[in-house]
């Protein structure tokens, strides 16, 4: 008796499509771009607290999940960042939400809304950069000026406070407190030590870069099978 083949789920159909990709060189077209971009970002961010090296194959799995070589978008926006009306790309390039800390200096200013939407290598870099921006934790902290290590002194005048001294000397109240731990009450003629510095956004730690976190932070629940797809693509690529 003939048996009927079981009906495949949508996810199984997607798996079938991807299984054919593994021997199709078109799906490896961006390997070089991905490796270079990931290597530059790993180098740039390695000194930040808690950063773990990004595996370029995970990014390749994202490209396979987001578009894939059989999609027309593969040739323009393989990471799918920058579709019309995408607030993510604008926030990444705004330099007000942490993107400026993620991008290596040589790429600052080179990525624009226009290039990210049309040049695959720029789309890949923006996509990885945005993923990392969404994975990092940021805080505003006092940061010492990198080009000025000398400790200076200032004499307190009547009416001075840590805030007015910091403003006048180009540092922050936190830096003054740190360099003058016993100066709880300010008196005229008292000497305070200071170093130039400012309040800046810094990366304080990182979320794990797992497929679940990528699904949550990059896809936002748009596709309930995103993490599962990513796991499958990552497994295929590693094998």
């Amino acid at each position, binding site marked *: 008796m003939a048996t009927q083949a079981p009906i495949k789920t949508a996810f199984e159909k997607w798996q079938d499509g991807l299984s054919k990709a593994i021997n199709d060189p078109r799906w490896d077209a961006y390997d070089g771009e991905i490796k270079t971009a990931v290597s530059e970002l790993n180098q740039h961010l390695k000194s930040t607290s808690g950063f773990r090296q990004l595996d370029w194959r995970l990014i390749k799995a994202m490209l396979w999940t987001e*578009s894939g070589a059989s999609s027309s978008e593969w040739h323009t926006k393989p990471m799918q960042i920058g579709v019309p009306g995408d607030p993510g790309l604008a926030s990444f390039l705004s330099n007000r939400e942490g993107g400026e800390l993620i991008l290596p200096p040589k790429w600052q200013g080179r990525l624009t809304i226009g290039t990210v939407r049309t040049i695959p290598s720029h789309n890949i870099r923006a996509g990885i950069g945005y993923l990392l921006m969404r994975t990092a934790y940021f805080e505003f902290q006092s940061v010492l000026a990198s080009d000025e290590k000398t400790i200076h002194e200032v004499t307190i005048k009547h009416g001075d406070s840590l805030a007015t001294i910091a403003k006048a000397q180009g540092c922050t109240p936190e830096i003054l407190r740190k360099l003058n731990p016993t100066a709880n009450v300010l008196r005229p003629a008292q000497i305070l030590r200071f170093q130039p510095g400012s309040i800046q956004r810094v990366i304080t730690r990182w979320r794990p870069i797992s497929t679940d976190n990528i699904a949550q932070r990059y896809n936002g*629940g748009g*596709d309930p099978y995103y993490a599962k797809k990513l796991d499958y693509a990552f497994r295929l690529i590693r094998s």
Partner: protein
Amino acid sequence: MRIPNFIVLAGLLALPGLATFANGAELQNERSAVEECGAHSESAMRECLSKRSQQSKRMLEQTEAQAAARLSMWDEDSKYISRAKEKLRTSSKAFEQYRDAQCAFDSSLGGGAIGNALEMRRLGCLIGLNTRRSEQLNSTVAALPAK
């Protein structure tokens, strides 16, 4: 010349897709649309959901037309029929406003995800609410006695 109501209704039911829609066979909820469109990459999934969303919108428009036709057939005084038709129009407008606001809210729950993903959330929401509205309209007018 006035066209009898039963002819109008028969004509509406003969519209492509409407007859099957009326018995719910074509209704598709948000979950099944997302599930079926999930057979694609994210870029194709968005296109798929966009098409399904347009379909659900057309279905709803047809259901609204069908509901209005059923009201015309209702065995009731004309002033009550007119009032019910006016309430249907008001209800449809209010539904559209609610749907768009609710789906914008749903999309916002994607947080800082990329725009493609936010749009997929919005489209899935539209499909779900259009479908439920169609079902509700169908069941609301189904039991009205005809002339």
